[in-house]
């Protein structure tokens, strides 16, 4: 596929992620921080997010699975997840965290378990989409093109 087509595909894909509410303005911020001197900035930050998230989801699974759930601990993990997802613009993950926290406050184990499941699904979704996006970027670069920015 030639560069122009790849670039169009990339722009359309990016736009769809915003339209679906998977990503918000903060992701655009990250894109704006990327330049020739820091060409991999977004991938780097998002990779950190993936690492961090997977650990958090693991810790959350363990914490929720305890005989006596330590809701303070669970809330702390979700708070952290909320922060990191917010920092990269993963809007739906962030919203799932907000809902989760209210159930932590209520100390509602059942609801928290459902929230955790929801959170895992949202995370998995945005991870897949972002990886697709990065693959598209790579194709553009390999074809010798520049990565276009959506005009906002």
């Amino acid at each position, binding site marked *: 596929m030639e560069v122009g087509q790849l670039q169009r595909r990339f722009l359309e894909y990016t736009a769809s992620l915003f339209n679906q509410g998977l990503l918000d303005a*903060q992701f655009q*911020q*990250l894109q*704006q*921080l990327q330049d020739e001197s*820091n060409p991999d*900035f977004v991938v*780097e*930050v998002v990779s*950190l*997010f993936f690492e*961090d998230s997977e650990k958090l989801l693991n810790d959350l699974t363990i914490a929720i699975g305890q005989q006596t759930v330590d809701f303070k601990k669970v809330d702390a993990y979700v*708070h*952290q997840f*909320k*922060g*990191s997802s*917010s*920092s*990269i*613009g993963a809007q739906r993950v962030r919203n799932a965290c907000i809902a989760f926290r209210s159930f932590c406050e209520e100390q509602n184990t059942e609801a928290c378990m459902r929230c955790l499941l929801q959170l895992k699904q949202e995370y998995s979704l945005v991870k897949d989409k972002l990886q697709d996006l990065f693959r598209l970027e790579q194709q553009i670069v390999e074809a010798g093109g520049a990565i276009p920015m959506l005009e906002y």
Partner: protein
Amino acid sequence: MARSDVFSRKRWSEKTSNNFGHDVHVLAVDDSLIDRKVIERLLKITSCKVTAVDSGIRALQYLGLEKNSVGFDGLKIDMIITDYCMPGMTGYELLKKIKGSSTFREVPVVIMSSENVLARIDRCLEEGAEDFIVKPVKLSDVKRLKDYMFGDEKQETNKRKLSEMSSESDITEPDYSASPSPPTSISESSAESLSSSPSLDSSTTLSSPASPHLSTTSSPPCSPSLLTSPTRRLKMTNLELD
């Protein structure tokens, strides 16, 4: 007349190159690696030198305000930006320690928080925080901070003209109280709990940081023993004393 012009211009440019513009040195404190990476990039893109640390204790150690400190003479910090919610020492506690120190109390401290809680904001401002930014931090937040604290090229040129007109003996530090008082940064999307911006009293207008005069002794960088796991490394970037 020409002689005094040259003299005042030289004095001025010494001040600007030491304290403003490209040499603004910011200490960023955040326990989240992701947030540290982002804030570091935001600051660097606005031409600041950045030292990023992962806790209040580390920050105090870096500043030389804690035992086992690696603070060295002549450390120049122009601004401290810290997360509020951190394990161990909160940003608020860090703020109090900084404001309680003789060496760094004049350094502007900015608090970042994901929670837009008026009581929290008030408490920080009362304790002497320069500003409070709701996360996620944006480029416009950092630009705004840098502009009102350290001026832009245009402002510096104007000040230069002003100082050239006054006699040499009257050259003082730039008085930023003439600039519009900095609005508290509360992002639109989460401003429900605020009706008006908290008042900033006049003491928050900008005295230039009363950091100790720069010595030119070269000091060793942070000792390796302070480095912990790769994910929570003390980041010492661009550690230059000039």
